[in-house]
């Protein structure tokens, strides 16, 4: 196999001299590979909490106000006799949303794979600043601790929805969770934002400055393009959420009126005057919408890479893929108003946002078709990572298509804030991004832990998850179109919706089974760290640079000099070569032309 590089050719070990203690190696590590693992494992724990919460509130929806052993066990004093109260229900949906969007799919996904892959795939010894990278992780960790600790506050955690619209989130008398719980939420998010900003700046600097010789921007794997653009979106939009959080803290604690005006609550008029909750909605969604692309773009990058590698084919339309990432990134910053069609903002703005929103369907369609063409006439290696990638495209299409309805202001009027929305965004950014994350974990597990995950468990995990994901979210479109609002603790006050009860039970059943299927994954993940089969250097026979590093992690990534790059990352099954992949560090053969990609 001439195509793999033997890293033991150059035994100079110039970067190999740090004496490391347990603390510097595993806890306050400066090494990007270790930090990636820290992100992943922290994200996994947050994910377990988030998914458990969703199963609990799904049970409440299916069997409203019935005593439940699980509630009694997990919620303790919040569910006296095992009956969940309305406040706890709202707290659960709020924290579920927050944890899944920010802590799992932003930090867990972007944090893990940007850290792991950026230096390895561009040919750098580490991130531009290892120290800032460590600070970024520890800020994330602190924000996790604060968020989780808010679950133990006397009056309960934040319960105003993950969008924390004021005045509900600003006034403790409006909702129990808007006291200390909300303060902790805001502090946690402020720290989280600082963490992601530091991380994002580091990613941007590293990608721009530290690419190895020959690694031009148009030779970057699509993963790196996705992480790079994601970081840019994060830098542009996260500070706006920080400002919104700070202004909300001012309103809550220092009597300002940025978001509040003319409020009469519990028998008294409050002093606030002149603010507007709509302003908060603008600030929130100026981050909030790009945020969904911060979640989905890295998953798209991972999936593109995995699909090409496992199809043994170049990704179709490499330049179109980059162009569509850039188009999506640009458009993502000018569509936030589609969350606010019925917020009371000027209807003319609604027209503008309908236009920009529906434009996003174009680059998204290009990406979907390019993925499908990538597997066309391929030689598909059905590794678990590949299954999750195909699953990603499937849910991305299903979920994305209903965006045409929600993005259309005239139609949004009637399905806004119903289960239709839940179905849409869970499929298109929740499940899809989760699939992207799983695909990435299965694929780069050998790189992270030097061992392989069990493929059969991976198959079982995928197929149960895939069936349950559709089982949960597909019917939700229909109960949404029947007019059922989201965030209702119980639908029993509305006989109108009684004919949806059975559907809700079915959905909850799928959710429970899907949740349990994740135990298979957790088992596979944690057991394989210690007992998995030892990985080869390049188990998937991929072309990118990370597979030229030794299996054992060494500081500085390559024992010898950093390899140079001579070709794009998708030379799979290229005619004229004996093997079906040519790594990027193999010089062009005589007379071989680099594809004009």
């Amino acid at each position, binding site marked *: 196999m001439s195509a793999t590089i033997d890293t033991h050719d150059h035994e100079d070990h110039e970067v190999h001299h740090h004496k490391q203690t347990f603390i510097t190696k595993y806890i306050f590590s400066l090494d990007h590979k270790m930090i990636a693992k820290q992100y992943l494992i922290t994200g996994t724990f947050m994910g377990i909490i988030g998914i458990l919460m969703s199963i609990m509130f799904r049970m409440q929806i299916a069997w409203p106000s*019935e005593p439940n052993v*699980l509630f009694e066990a997990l919620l303790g004093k919040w569910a006296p006799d095992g009956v969940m109260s*309305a406040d706890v229900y*709202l707290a659960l949906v709020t924290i579920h949303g927050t944890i899944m969007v920010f802590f799992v799919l932003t930090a867990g996904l972007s944090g893990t794979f940007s850290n792991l892959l950026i230096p390895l795939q561009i040919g750098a010894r580490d991130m531009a600043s290892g120290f800032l990278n460590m600070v970024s992780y520890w800020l994330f960790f602190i924000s996790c601790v604060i968020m989780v600790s808010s679950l133990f506050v006397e009056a309960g955690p934040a319960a105003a929805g993950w969008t924390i*619209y004021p*005045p509900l989130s600003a006034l403790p008398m*409006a*909702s129990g969770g808007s006291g200390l719980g909300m303060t902790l939420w805001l502090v946690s998010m402020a720290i989280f934002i600082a963490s992601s900003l530091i991380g994002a700046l580091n990613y941007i600097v590293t990608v721009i400055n530290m690419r190895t010789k020959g690694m031009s921007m148009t030779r970057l794997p699509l993963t790196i393009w996705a992480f790079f653009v994601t970081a840019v979106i994060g830098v542009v939009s996260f500070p706006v959420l920080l400002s919104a959080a700070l202004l909300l803290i001012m309103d809550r604690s220092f009597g300002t009126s940025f978001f509040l005006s003319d*409020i*009469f*609550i519990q028998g008294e008029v409050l002093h606030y005057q*002149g603010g*507007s909750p*709509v302003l908060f909605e603008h600030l929130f969604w100026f981050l909030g919408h790009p945020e969904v692309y911060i979640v989905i773009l890295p998953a798209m990058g991972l999936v593109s890479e995995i699909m090409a590698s496992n199809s043994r*084919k*170049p990704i*179709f*339309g490499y330049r179109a893929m980059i162009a569509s990432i850039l188009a999506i990134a640009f458009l993502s910053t000018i569509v936030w108003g589609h969350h606010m069609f*019925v917020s*009371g903002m000027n*209807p003319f703005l609604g027209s503008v946002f309908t236009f920009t929103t*529906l434009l996003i369907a*174009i680059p998204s369609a290009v990406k979907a*078709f*390019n*993925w*499908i*063409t990538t597997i066309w*006439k*391929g030689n*598909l290696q*059905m590794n678990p990572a590949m299954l999750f990638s195909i699953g990603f*495209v*499937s849910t991305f*299409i299903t979920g994305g298509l209903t965006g*045409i*309805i929600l993005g*259309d*202001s*005239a*139609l949004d009027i*009637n399905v806004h*804030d119903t289960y239709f929305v839940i179905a849409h965004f869970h499929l298109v950014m929740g499940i899809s991004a989760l699939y992207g994350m799983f695909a990435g974990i299965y694929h780069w597990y050998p790189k992270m832990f030097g061992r*392989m995950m*069990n*493929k059969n*468990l991976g198959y079982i995990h995928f197929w149960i998850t895939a069936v349950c994901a559709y089982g949960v979210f*597909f019917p939700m479109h229909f109960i949404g179109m*029947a*007019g059922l609002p989201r965030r209702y603790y119980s*639908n029993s006050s509305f006989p*109108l919706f*009684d*004919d949806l009860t059975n559907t809700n039970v079915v959905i909850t059943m799928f959710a*429970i*089974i899907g949740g349990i299927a994740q135990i*298979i994954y957790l088992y596979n993940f944690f057991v394989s760290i210690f007992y998995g*089969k030892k990985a080869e250097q390049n188990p998937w026979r991929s072309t990118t640079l990370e597979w030229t590093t030794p299996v054992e992690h060494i500081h500085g990534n390559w024992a010898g000099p950093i390899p140079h790059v001579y070709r794009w990352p998708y030379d*799979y099954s290229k005619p004229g070569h004996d093997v079906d992949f040519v790594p990027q560090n193999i010089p062009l053969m005589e007379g071989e032309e680099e*594809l004009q990609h």
Partner: protein
Amino acid sequence: MTALFTIIIVLFVAVAIWQMVKIFDIAQVGTTQTQVADDKDNKINGYLMIAFLIFVYVITILCFWFIGDLPLLSNAASEHGSKVDNLMIISLVVIFIVQTITQFLLHYFAFKYKGEKGKKAFFYADNNTLEFIWTIIPVIVLAGLIIYGLFTWNDIMNIDEDEDPMVIELYAQQFNWKARYSGADNVLGKANVRLIDIDRANILGVDEEDPNAQDDIIVSELHLPVGKPVVFKMRSQDVLHSAYMPHFRAQMNCVPGMVTQFGFTPSVTTADMRERPEMIDKVKNINELRSERAAEIEESGQELIYEFDYLLLCNKICGTSHYNMQMKIIVETQEEFDAWLKEQTTFPNSLN
């Protein structure tokens, strides 16, 4: 009981999975599996891809079959509602076609091109014509949808003052709704939360001095005359609420500190809607389901027999009882409406 049942099922499934895990573990002892997919894996998963495609189609058909008689696609009760429904149906058809085709291609290719040892993939990196085709097709389809959508949107949101719509205030508070009719002058009296005087029963903070307020009427059940344009001016006294009237294809947030508005013309009276065949079926179905859990419903104090009514729901998370914030809407003939309105107390008379 159901909850206990669930827990037991959950436990069984967990045990089943645990057993599967064990079997896989045992099966792997002593083998030289690389954990990289081989031809057998490719084949099995290739076939499963087809099975999954069928599953996706089946769940689509089942959803349409069992929960697809969407009341929100057929029984709009407002004049603009049928336009919204048309657009919705067109969008759904487009989505359905694209979904069916793309899911087929994706899963069929995954099956057809499942890997075999020694086979080489087709090196196919780019094709500008194809890229152009699938850029331009969405552009054309979306252009159509955008144009149709924007016309509909403008139509709904631009309230035609020439039609002299009846002005009604919708007032939201944790956790109920009030409506204020503007009376004969069709102008609402000024109001602000700072004027709320609970002792005098001025719960909406209406300005008692304002001449326009003298004929205002505050009620807690919304009556609308059929065929008469209405414009709702919405206020909230505490947190965000959203006035959601699904049958009228109407929704607008109520925002403390500002007045928002939404206008429509109700087109079907409550009595007529109750007599529509699909509504009779729906109500019958609901009542059958309700009779199965009669004891529970009666215990909660609800009427056992459901009768259809239009509703105004709160659709923006607003606190503990968000799930039970509603107001009945009754659409009736102009004569019935006038008679009802005459019986209501005007604002000055409602004060203590």
